């Protein structure tokens, strides 16, 4: 093993080409992962922020707020289910918003959430006509006191505070009272208006000690199958586009890891061919193939680890340099760690392709060879 490390230290130039490629691959992995995390965060933040355990939709709504309607009678049945602690009605309205100090075509994409209970990070829902905005709106010039004109009817909502990480499908959430939400819906989307006390969905908190999945099944049974109850996590993952974003990016990440395997395999296969004479000598003086392969794997791991460190630093620098709100990049320690693990595993798999070649090196080649 010391042999392998010494070669890395004393002949860094030999590994520079492979190292550079691995740095670029690691950076690409981290960047793709960061983009996926950023996109998912901006898509699911508002649902993840719901302060409960379960989200209840009507069964025919296919897990969409817009198509769902929870009638008061259904709510009563749900609240009577064993294991249900509290329920809070929620409704959404996806509309454009204008600022009074900007032109009429300068629209902000917002989603008005009428909620009976505040989301995580907020102590209380503000008064009618007021809203707490997702903090991403700060980057678009919105501040406390800003009056937003919602929808074509230009319903007024005054921003009175901000809350982090509550975007919904890439749009900033405005958290307001159910009454304000109903009024906005009624004036801007007459086709979608709901009766009094009807909500699009319910956020249910289960009682201490109760199983969320059991309670979800009990709720759906209590409504005679008229509802579809999901955990908050499943509801977030079920939002339109979320799964396809995740699948698409994960496939690209998978292909990138595959490329890393090929790069490592080719590089170390070439290195093994180049070192055949040296391996022959080392085997002749008693080195086991396993020891030599261990050295090869160690070199690949060290090279990949260095590439990950350099790429991680570059990814963090990139994250800091990109203006907030321009692209949904989110670099986290967990993502950097996961990308590094992918690359290290790719390095080991790549090295495995050299094993057969290394096993075939004959120690007899060291004897009687003048070359």
């Amino acid at each position, binding site marked *: *093993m*010391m*042999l392998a490390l*010494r*070669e890395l230290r*004393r*002949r860094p130039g030999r590994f520079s080409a492979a190292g550079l490629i691995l740095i670029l691959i690691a950076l690409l992995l981290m960047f793709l992962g960061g983009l996926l995390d950023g996109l998912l965060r901006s898509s699911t933040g508002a649902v993840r922020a719901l302060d409960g355990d379960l989200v209840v939709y009507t069964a025919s709504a296919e897990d969409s707020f817009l198509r769902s309607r929870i009638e008061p009678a259904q709510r009563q049945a749900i609240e009577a289910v064993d294991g249900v602690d509290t329920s809070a009605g929620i409704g959404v309205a996806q509309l454009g918003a204008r600022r009074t100090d900007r032109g009429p075509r300068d629209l902000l994409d917002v989603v008005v959430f009428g909620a009976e209970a505040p989301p995580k990070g907020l102590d209380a829902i503000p008064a009618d006509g007021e809203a707490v905005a997702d903090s991403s709106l700060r980057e678009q010039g919105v501040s406390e006191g800003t009056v937003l004109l919602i929808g074509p009817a230009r319903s007024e909502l005054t921003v009175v505070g901000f809350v982090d990480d509550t975007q919904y499908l890439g749009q900033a959430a405005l958290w307001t009272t159910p009454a304000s939400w109903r009024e906005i819906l009624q004036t801007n989307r007459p086709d979608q208006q709901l009766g009094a006390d009807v909500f699009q969905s319910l956020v249910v908190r289960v009682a201490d000690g109760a199983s969320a999945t059991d309670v979800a099944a009990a709720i759906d049974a209590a409504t005679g199958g008229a509802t579809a109850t999901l955990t908050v996590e499943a509801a977030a993952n079920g939002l339109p586009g979320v799964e396809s974003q995740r699948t698409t990016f994960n496939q690209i990440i998978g292909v990138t890891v595959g490329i890393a395997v090929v790069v490592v395999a080719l590089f170390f296969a070439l290195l093994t061919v180049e070192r055949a*004479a*040296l391996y022959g*000598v*080392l*085997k*002749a*003086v*008693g*080195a*086991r193939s396993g*020891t030599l392969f261990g050295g090869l794997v160690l070199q690949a791991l060290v090279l990949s680890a260095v590439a990950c460190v350099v790429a991680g630093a570059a990814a963090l620098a990139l994250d800091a340099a990109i203006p907030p709100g321009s692209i949904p990049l989110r670099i986290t320690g967990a993502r950097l760690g996961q990308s590094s693990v992918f690359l290290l595993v790719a390095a080991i798999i790549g090295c495995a392709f050299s094993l057969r070649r290394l096993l075939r090196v004959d*120690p*007899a080649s*060291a*004897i*009687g*060879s*003048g*070359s």
Partner: protein
Amino acid sequence: MNANGSTVPALSLQAVRKVYAMGDSEVVALDDVSLDVAPGEIVALVGPSGSGKTTLCSIAGAILSPTSGRVVVAGTDITGYSPKQLTAVRRDLVGFVFQSVNLVPFLTARENLLVVDEIGRRTGAAAKARADQLLGELGLADRARNLPAQLSGGQRQRVAIGRALMNEPKLVLFDEPTSALDSKLGMAVMELIQQEMKARGTAAIVVTHDERITRFCDRSVHMDDGRITQS
């Protein structure tokens, strides 16, 4: 009996035969070869190219297994050994000095000696002390930190001898040790080999084309067509 008091032959080949398959035909590389090398004895193995010297050396050094016959190294019968067991024999009982020296180019002279310990017993401090001692005995103490490229041909050959002696072998196999050196340096290296082997009571087989170096050996074994023709 050698300097260590051992009377067990360092090498005993008994009716060894080695046949290589070449397509549909067979090539007999060694044919009924028997040879004993006593502890501390230096044997010159002389013969033309293709006479079987390299094959004999490879079998004696536990690199190849014979097709038939018996091979005993330092009292250990290795005839039916698996490749893994042969590796252990090479690591523990045999030393090699190759024709082209074959030092690890990115390691210093001292580290080239320590490679043997790293891939073998891993004795750590004891190995370092032995490497320093060997380098001193071989006149390379002041070259211990030099890379092979910074050493002369003779110095590189001395490092290779030191590497072969690191595992305290019972038998050292020298494959044309002077072929890459000029005549004067070649004789000096052979003198050194003679001194080192005798001082340690270590047996040696020196494969060579050069009849001049046989005077440094206790006896010469001539080979031709896979057979020992004169011993």
